[in-house]
């Protein structure tokens, strides 16, 4: 099976994120970047599918500045076969990303697309859904387990939904977005790292794909989350509800 996996470069969740004083973005100096953790789970799943089926191809795709090749190399070192890099310096909204990816899918014709359920930087959680809609493909988001039919023409996906698990099935091709419990990603191996050097990262420009990437979204301002205050103990549920209403003003 040929699987396409999307890879986004995001700030390391372990690093301290500071918002620029003018709220226009985050301070990027000294921030380490990693593969979006959900994308890493997606890569792992694609590799397991390939290993289990004893063949196929895992192709990574990332959109962004030249530096995203670092994350693509990491994915190749984990075991993916090759990578596509769509060069784009500007900030993109989810729809632009989905449109670019749709063009890549047209060129690559994968049988399966595995993506992260969301990127941990903007937490938008919509690229997968939008892409499936643009392609007219079935989608299964928040996947925690996949089971392919014997002929590998369809898949049963267990999804983590509010209040429990849901299993849905569809005929391939389709889009799956990975949730946290789908698997535990492997470490890139030393032989894998050495082999990754020779694997192809193909660069494609946005103009080649002929997609309108004008953003429909504008980020007005970023603000850091409010500083944590010390906790408070209350005697009754009623007192808690009152405080949530009068003091915290959240209900």
């Amino acid at each position: 099976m040929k699987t396409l996996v999307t890879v986004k470069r995001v700030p390391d969740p372990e690093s301290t994120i500071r918002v620029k004083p003018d709220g226009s973005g985050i301070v990027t100096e000294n921030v380490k970047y990693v593969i979006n953790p959900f994308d890493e789970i997606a890569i792992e799943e694609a590799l397991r599918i390939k290993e289990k089926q004893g063949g196929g191809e895992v192709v990574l795709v990332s959109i962004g500045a030249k530096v995203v090749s670092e994350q693509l190399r990491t994915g190749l070192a984990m075991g993916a076969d090759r990578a596509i890099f769509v060069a784009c310096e500007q900030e993109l909204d989810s729809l632009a990303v989905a449109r670019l990816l749709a063009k890549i899918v047209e060129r690559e014709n994968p049988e399966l697309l595995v993506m992260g359920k969301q990127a941990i930087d903007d937490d938008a959680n919509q690229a997968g859904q939008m892409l499936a809609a643009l392609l007219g493909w079935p989608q299964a988001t928040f996947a925690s387990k996949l089971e392919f039919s014997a002929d590998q023409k369809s898949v049963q996906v267990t999804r983590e939904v509010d209040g429990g698990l849901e299993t849905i099935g569809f005929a391939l091709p389709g889009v799956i977005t990975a949730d946290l419990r789908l698997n535990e990603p492997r470490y890139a191996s030393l032989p894998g790292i050495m082999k990754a050097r020779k694997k192809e990262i193909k660069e494609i420009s946005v103009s080649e794909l002929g997609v309108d990437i004008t953003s429909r979204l504008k980020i007005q301002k970023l603000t850091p989350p409010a500083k944590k205050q010390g906790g408070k103990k209350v005697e009754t549920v009623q007192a808690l509800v009152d405080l949530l209403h009068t003091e915290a003003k959240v209900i």
Partner: protein
Amino acid sequence: MNPFPGFTLSPELELLRDQVRRIVHDEIIPAEKRVDPDAEDLAEEDYHRIVAKTKAAGLWSLAAPEQYGGGGVNTFGMSVILEEMSQHRMGLYNPGCGVFGRYPPPVIYGGSEEQIQKYAVPTLRAGSYTFFAITEPSGGSDPAGSIQCRAVRDGDTWVLNGTKIFISHAHEANWGVVFVRTDPTKGRKGISCLIIDQGTPGFTARPFRTIRTVSLPNEVSFEDCRVPAANMIGKEGDGLDLCMDLLTKQRFPYSACNLGVARAAHRLAVAHAKQRSTFGVPLSQRQAIQWMLADAEVELRATRYLIWDGAWKADRGEDARVEASVAKLYSSEMLGRVIDNAVQIHGGYGVTKEFPLERWYREARVRRIGEGPSEVHRMVIARALFR
């Protein structure tokens, strides 16, 4: 002129370093929290669970030669990697808690293929401890002059008599190497190196306690201890020479452990200074504290380049003995200073077992004595100045 663009790590080495960093952070540090702060090793089940992952990822025995199942990573590569691998509580004397493998004494590679296959290869595979016995009660700084442990040839065995001291792991390792005097008339050239199996009659190891509560050193005694002549590494009288080059190379990753632990301590100190206030002001705003941390930052950066510079030379096959002494001396003394300040900045918390600082502080003290005390390395450096 072609201006030098500066040093950058290869993407492969960066990736490898990141994998090691991640395993330390995600696997080792949590597992370390499940054992006593003074523990020597991880719990068996944690160790085996993590080893399964490192082995699957080919991150096992990275420094060992490829033909013996290792990763073939060179001295420079290992220096970069050990700077990461040591950044946890047990990291100074047990980097990575052994989940990336453990190495036999490098002198074994001066031995025959048969000896390497019989001793080095199974040890690399199992990641077990070995010992390296050179120091004697008569003194460790000058082995060529002070080794008195005698080996006398009798047919196809050597008969050993004498005492070694401070021999780490000698009571628990399957085997080790010992440096003995085979010819009392020849000075340095009268010292040979033998492989000793645990359990050889006449070999006794008695562990004793030091400031370093792990990797216990031993008093080792030989009483008419018979060792097969086939266990000699290299030729008779080659003992000290055959390990010089290998020991020199080992100093750089060793120094990188000092650097790694110092960096980890420094990071804790910076974080603590930011969040701790006294007299209504964060410690990070006090010049007394700032200067401690600024000095540490400078020394950490300097140490890295001293290690890298020597490791590059060693990998190019150049004589790096002075560089090895410079790196060993500076990194171990720097570690002492950085840890001492990190403990001080933490106040009372610095000496509790809640933080790894007190263990690093104690173990760091040994780093200025073991593997050649500071004075001996200064002597080596000074000798080169006056040559």
